[in-house]
């Protein structure tokens, strides 16, 4: 890869040298408004990447080829100017501030290009530079915090972070809320975003509301991200090479105690006193136990103690009984190397773009790796009235992650948390040679060495994506175009998971301390499983579009058909007991293999029409309609019509007098209404009753089948989303301040609910259309571009803010609550999802009621509603500071209004490693603010009832531990999402600009800081344990490793 890049670079250099016949142009750029000089203006030779920027005094000097024809002057907030080059060597330019970039077009549904001012609904474009500021290797991370109403949730970190993408919140209770992603006109799954090289993306246009997206009918209700990839630009061949290297480190750990060591009820009298002993005078704790995972032992005192047990050869470990910061020691510094090369070029008739990328990432957990290699080609050619464009891309992603342990299948993090603070965990990394790191030698009797599972339990995935599209267009008249786009996406995902056998020696197997050593149940058989999934999607869109003006009236329209066909196949096999160690194949087993197979197919057809009528370039009315036929529904229910209408009025063009207003320079009002749908059937055959093989069957020759526990429903129809929105855009002070605001309301009814129903019906759930969820929100985007020339500094900034709230209007008649996961519920009248948790009994004021003798609380049988899982406020703030090619970009994001159930805290309390479990020094204490019920309904403050044993009994067994209320906190946070400091190396001055046209070096950082409410001592509230496909946000577990920060450097060269 690197060699090829070098070769191409040399080739390019040779070419450039041959062509390097240049002349120098100089000049000054001033403001047409006030005559002042403008620094930082980009000056470039049209059709090339040759260019420079003006200095502090607005002056520039640029070497241009002899045959250069046009110079382009551009600056944020000012109208771009093109100056024809003749023989002159001095070019002075006056630049005027621009009202709005009227000639820019946005790509909307089906590639329909519309001018921003025609749009009656909110859209927002993110271009490549914004997207890749912080050197992301993942598109979703690059979008976070940049578009109001767009929420990117990184629900777990790691080498291939799981992300979830929603626009304007969750409209569906259980169906997917992920936005539709359309790449160069071809719908792709949201997971495909992990496979795209962000550097290939020219821009992402975000159609926030369903209105803009309604033309996609059945898939449009969640909004659409329209991704347009790069094409070759006119001019000489350009080669870009870049490297981004970043480092990832654990940034925040839960608050942990380092005061007490291992012990948990084992008594010295019954166990070997060599391993279980009292340390120091403290008898309020449990005795020290050398092999214990829980931390309810004596206070650390520095004396030498035995750790674990004796090995067969009689050797044993002595360690100082002193708490250390061992949890942080466990985590590695992850490294990500991203190398890119792209070659592009174009002339009047044809264009091409070719790129390749290689990303290699290692994680904060040892041996976790992810690598992605991708290539992409795009080219086009025009023949008179015909044109043809195609794209073809291939990417391969390989991921390897640690799996669960051999005993309880716990994640690595759990086993790290269950390591007392006096154990130097990193010294057990060498599980082959360190006798105290082996399965038998490891000190912990109940949980294995996490390094064991890193080495012996792996989850591997290999994903291949091929995406190709062909666009043929025929333009018989200037006003008419007929085009056909065919797209094919094909991907395979192969998972290969395995776990090695773990055999304990007879000593461990004999339960040496009579305390239930995990070796007793050994051997743990090795297992392996494979899953192959393949998806093939064919799309074809045939469109006729016309664009014609009749006097003051302009008419732009599209009619078309859209075909979608998807086939999915999966095969799974598993061996639960491997025989020959290290051979991970289903044939290497005893017992029956686990096997399954499924084939799914679905087809749909749509016909649609879309028209925009304009009047005098200041009033526009747009409407669209689409009818869908979808095979997943039964014949009577499969046809649906989805209409949308929107309008915009540019008041400032209607009444030009406003323009002369020195304050307000642009004003537009807009509004829209739409109806879209979503067929929400996980099983595309869900309208039919189904009798899968019953649990355990077949038993050899005996077959048996049982009715699915989900009641099927042949009357299912799509969920319907009706969305209305209204907004305005205004610019002040000649466009230096641009403000855009929207309000919307969407109602999604006929939700497809595999409603949990009374088991007494004979089913666990029934698929029904019922319920309505209402979303309301406001989005505000503010862009400020003050023309500051103070000392050559340029600054612009922006704020995007979204307020969103939801309300469950109904579920099913007579039902006002449905559980969807751990602590997530659909509750009528509440925001979605409501978080409901177990709690201890409390008095009406919320004080914990304790027993007057034991001082302990008891469990409240009813669940408590404590908030909701999705944020109400999302605020992004960005700042961009330029000084002579030195650029500092900062992006911060706030989210708040929601709560999080930090279930990881339950694991921390269980093992006694949480900071608050040691706050009372493990002494008896009164639960702060607790009350005693002296007679029914009468509560008096508790001043006497001490928790008898404020150690293990309380933190592991009491209702305080078994209930979740104490783990719930505000999920608010501020994050410093991106910081990038880049410098455009003045290559011209150094190398003369002949070979290297541009060079940029930079320092990048992501998630450098996070601020949370004090009460949240656990983890990143953006995390979510329920996975990418579930809407049950609002809880975390030990399955999410601690949050990380990423920082590194980038080098980008253009030849």
């Amino acid at each position, binding site marked *: 890869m690197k060699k090829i890049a070098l070769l191409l670079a040399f080739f390019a250099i040779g070419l450039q040298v041959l062509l390097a016949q240049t002349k120098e142009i100089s000049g000054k750029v001033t403001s047409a408004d006030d005559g002042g000089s403008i620094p930082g203006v980009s000056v470039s030779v049209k059709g090339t990447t040759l260019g420079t920027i003006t200095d502090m005094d607005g002056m520039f000097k640029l070497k241009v080829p002899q045959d250069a024809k046009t110079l382009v002057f551009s600056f944020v907030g000012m109208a771009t100017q093109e100056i024809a080059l003749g023989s002159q060597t001095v070019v002075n330019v006056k630049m005027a501030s621009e009202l709005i970039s009227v000639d820019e077009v946005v790509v909307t549904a089906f590639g329909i290009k519309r001018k921003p001012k025609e749009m009656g609904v909110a859209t927002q474009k993110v271009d490549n530079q914004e997207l890749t500021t912080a050197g992301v290797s993942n598109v979703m991370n690059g979008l976070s915090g940049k578009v109001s109403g767009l929420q990117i949730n990184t629900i777990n970190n790691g080498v291939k972070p799981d992300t979830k993408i929603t626009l304007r919140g969750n409209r569906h209770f259980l169906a997917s809320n992920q936005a539709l992603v359309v790449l160069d006109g071809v719908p792709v799954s949201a997971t495909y975003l992990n496979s795209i090289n962000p550097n290939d993306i020219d821009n992402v246009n975000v159609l926030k509301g369903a209105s803009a997206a309604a033309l996609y009918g059945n898939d449009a209700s969640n909004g659409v991200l329209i991704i347009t990839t790069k094409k070759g630009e006119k001019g000489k061949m350009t080669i870009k090479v870049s490297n981004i290297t970043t480092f990832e480190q654990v940034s925040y750990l839960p608050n942990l105690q380092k005061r007490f060591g291992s012990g948990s009820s084992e008594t010295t*009298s*019954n166990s070997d006193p060599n391993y279980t002993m009292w340390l120091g005078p403290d008898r309020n704790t449990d005795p020290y136990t050398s092999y214990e995972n829980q931390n309810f032992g004596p206070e650390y005192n520095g004396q030498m103690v035995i750790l674990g047990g004796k090995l067969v050869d009689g050797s044993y470990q002595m360690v100082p009984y002193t708490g250390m910061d061992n949890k942080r020691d466990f985590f590695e510094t992850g490294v990500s190397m991203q190398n890119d090369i792209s070659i592009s070029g174009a002339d009047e008739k044809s264009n091409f773009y070719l790129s390749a990328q290689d990303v290699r990432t290692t994680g904060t957990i040892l041996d976790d790796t992810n690598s992605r290699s991708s290539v992409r080609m795009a080219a086009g050619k025009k023949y008179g009235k015909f044109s043809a464009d195609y794209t073809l891309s291939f990417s391969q992603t390989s991921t390897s992650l640690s799996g669960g342990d051999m*005993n309880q299948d716990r994640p690595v993090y759990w086993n790290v948390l269950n390591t007392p603070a006096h154990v130097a965990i990193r010294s057990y990394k060498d599980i082959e040679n360190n006798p105290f790191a082996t399965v038998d030698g490891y000190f912990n009797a109940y949980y294995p060495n996490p390094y064991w599972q890193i080495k012996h339990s792996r989850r591997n995935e290999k994903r291949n994506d091929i995406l190709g599209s062909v666009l043929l267009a*025929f333009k018989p008249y200037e006003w008419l175009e007929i085009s056909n786009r065919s797209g094919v996406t094909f991907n395979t995902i192969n998972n290969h998971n395995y776990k090695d056998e773990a055999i304990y020696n007879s000593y461990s197997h004999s*339960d040496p301390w*009579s*305390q*239930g050593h995990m070796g007793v*149940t050994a*051997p743990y*058989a090795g297992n392996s499983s494979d899953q192959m999934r393949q998806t093939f999607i064919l799309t074809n869109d*045939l469109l006729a579009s016309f664009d014609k003006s009749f006097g003051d009236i302009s008419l732009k329209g599209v009619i078309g058909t859209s*075909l979608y066909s998807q086939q999915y196949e999966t095969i799974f096999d598993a061996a639960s007991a491997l025989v020959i160690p290290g051979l991970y194949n289903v044939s290497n087993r*005893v*017992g*029956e293999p*686990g096997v399954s197979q499924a084939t*799914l*197919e*679905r*087809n749909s057809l749509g016909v649609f029409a879309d028209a925009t009528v304009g009047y005098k370039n200041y009033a526009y009315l747009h409407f669209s309609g689409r009818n869908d036929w979808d*095979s997943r529904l*039964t*014949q009577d229910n*499969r046809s649906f019509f989805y209409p949308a209408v929107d309008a915009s009025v540019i008041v400032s063009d209607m009444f030009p007098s406003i323009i002369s207003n020195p304050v307000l320079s642009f004003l537009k009002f807009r509004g829209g209404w739409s109806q879209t749908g979503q067929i929400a059937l996980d099983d595309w*055959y869900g309208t*039919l009753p*189904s*009798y899968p093989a*019953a*649990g*355990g*069957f077949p*038993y050899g020759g*005996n*077959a*048996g*089948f*049982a*009715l*699915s*526990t989900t009641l099927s429903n042949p009357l299912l129809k799509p969920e319907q989303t009706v969305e209305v929105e209204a907004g305005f855009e205004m610019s002040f002070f000649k466009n230096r301040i641009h403000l855009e605001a929207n309000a919307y309301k969407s109602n999604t009814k006929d939700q497809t609910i595999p*409603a*949990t129903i*009374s*088991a*007494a*019906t*004979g*089913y*666990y759930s*029934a698929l029904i259309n019922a319920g309505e969820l209402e979303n309301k929100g406001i989005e505000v985007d503010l862009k400020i571009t003050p023309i500051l020339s103070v000392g050559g500094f340029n600054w612009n900034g922006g704020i995007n803010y979204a307020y969103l709230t939801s309300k469950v209007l109904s579920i099913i008649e*007579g039902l006002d609550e*449905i559980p969807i996961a751990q602590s997530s519920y659909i509750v009528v009248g509440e925001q979605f999802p409501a978080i409901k948790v177990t709690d201890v009994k409390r008095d009406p004021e919320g004080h914990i009621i304790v*027993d007057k003798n*034991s001082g302990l609380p008891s*469990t409240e049988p009813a669940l408590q509603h404590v908030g909701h899982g999705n944020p109400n406020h999302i605020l992004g703030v960005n700042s961009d500071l330029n000084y002579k090619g030195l650029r500092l970009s900062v992006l911060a994001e706030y989210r708040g209004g929601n709560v999080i159930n930090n279930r990881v805290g339950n694991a921390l309390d269980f093992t006694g490693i949480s900071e608050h479990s040691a706050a009372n020094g493990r002494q008896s204490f009164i639960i702060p603010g607790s009350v005693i019920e002296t007679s029914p309904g009468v509560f008096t403050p508790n001043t006497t009832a001490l928790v008898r044993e404020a150690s293990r009994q309380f933190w592991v*067994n*009491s209702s305080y531990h*078994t209930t979740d209320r104490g783990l719930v906190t505000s999920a608010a946070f501020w994050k410093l999402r991106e910081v990038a400091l880049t410098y455009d190396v003045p290559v011209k001055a150094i190398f003369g600009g002949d070979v290297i046209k541009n060079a940029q070096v930079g320092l990048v950082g992501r998630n450098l800081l996070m601020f949370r409410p004090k009460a949240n001592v656990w983890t990143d509230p953006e995390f979510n344990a329920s996975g990418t496909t579930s809407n049950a946000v609002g809880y975390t577990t030990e399955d999410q490793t601690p949050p990380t920060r990423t920082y590194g450097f980038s080098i980008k060269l253009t030849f």
Partner: protein
Amino acid sequence: MNKKIFILLISLALLGSSCSEFLSVNEVNPNSASKVPAKLLLPAAINNVASTMNNPRNFEFVYLWHGLWSISSGYSQPSGLVQYRLLNSSYQNAFQLSYTTGQNLTEIEKGSTDPKDAGYKAIAMILKAYIMHNLVDLWGNVPYSEAFKTEEGILKPKYDDQKAIYEDLILKLDAAIKLIQGLPADATEIPASADIIFHGDMTKWAKLANTIKLRMLVHQSGMAGRDAYIKTAIATTASVGYLGAGESALSNPGYLNSDGKMNPFYATFYKADGSSQSDGVTYYNAGKGVVTFMTDNADPRLGKFFNPYSGTNFAGNTLGITEPAPLTAANTSKLGYVSGSKGHMIGTFDKSAPLLTDFESLFVQAEAVERGYITGSGKSLYNSALTQSCLYMGLTAAQATAFITSEKTNVNYDVASNKINLILMQKWTSLNGIAPVEIWTDYRRSGIPNFLTFTQDPNKANATPPVRLLYPQREISVNNDNVVAVGTIDAFTSKIFWQNR
């Protein structure tokens, strides 16, 4: 241009003609059948009933609360269990699994309208009665008349009066017996692969129905003024007889030594490769109450129900004990297991799973005789019950005989002063690990055995164990109105209707 339009029209025409085919791809499910005959539904339904009843996790509380098992002192003692703090989320499995199995039985019943298929219909009715009365024994009022009626649009079935359910089930069992007695000569044969209990022997199904009926009626023996009803109900089908020695209702689909395909009781403790399930083998230990009782009786079955912790020494723990300290795991007996031995409690991967054993039937009959409900010899029924229990636990007939003829007051029928007390104490020991619901029901209706030591946890919620389970959390979430209509439920005071204590 013209050519282009021509091509376009052709493709549109092709598209139109293949349109209906294009859109009908989801009308046949390639992954799972949309209709299945009774002979393929029945084995799964029977197996589900057996798995539900024989998964010790579903009923561990019975064993732990009634002196039969304890939790190893090496484990955190779960407070809900040890302190009698039942939650709505506790032990919901049997409720849910029973009803989904009931739906499959209802499908069989509805699909067997042809008189030739009456055998399938009768079996489905008998198994449904078995499921439903167990649900009543655990939860009292439960959905019944409106259960399994989604086709009528009922998604929230009301809760019926428990006594009325019991009475209706008795009628259903009568009807099932009648169906079997009236089977036509050309009745559909039920293959052994479908009837994984009696392999098509309908006479035994009739006896099972009659035994379930007798068991349900004996449950009500403590109710005042109920004797006349009980006797009349028994009399209508007395001629059918009951499951006798060697006629146990045992389910076996053809268990395999493969994870997910083993006897469900065994699978809780061991895996296919012979390694033990963590939190299974080492988690449950012997209970002190039963170990003491059996030791006093020199019961030869002790070494089958439990393993000696060393040599020939057996010991059990009392639940929740802290003072004096509980016996360590090394000094406590574990549940009986010897690899490959079907007689030991844990058994083998291929041991048949009991729904109703012959010795349980014999104990019930013995009690019915003692109560004057049926005629016969209480002594011979009791002795036969103990003998069958000994044989079931892998002992020899000679060992059984030696045991029943010993002079121990709690073993020998003639020596015992209170026969019913004797029958129920020995039933308690015999059903250990086999029929938890019946153990609990017997204790609740009779208070026998009367020497049990309950939990010693200082934070226990009540001195004696709960008398019923709480309605599942799921029901409270999705069928709340009907749950509320039952009235306030208290785990310690809301008794099942047949409970006279």
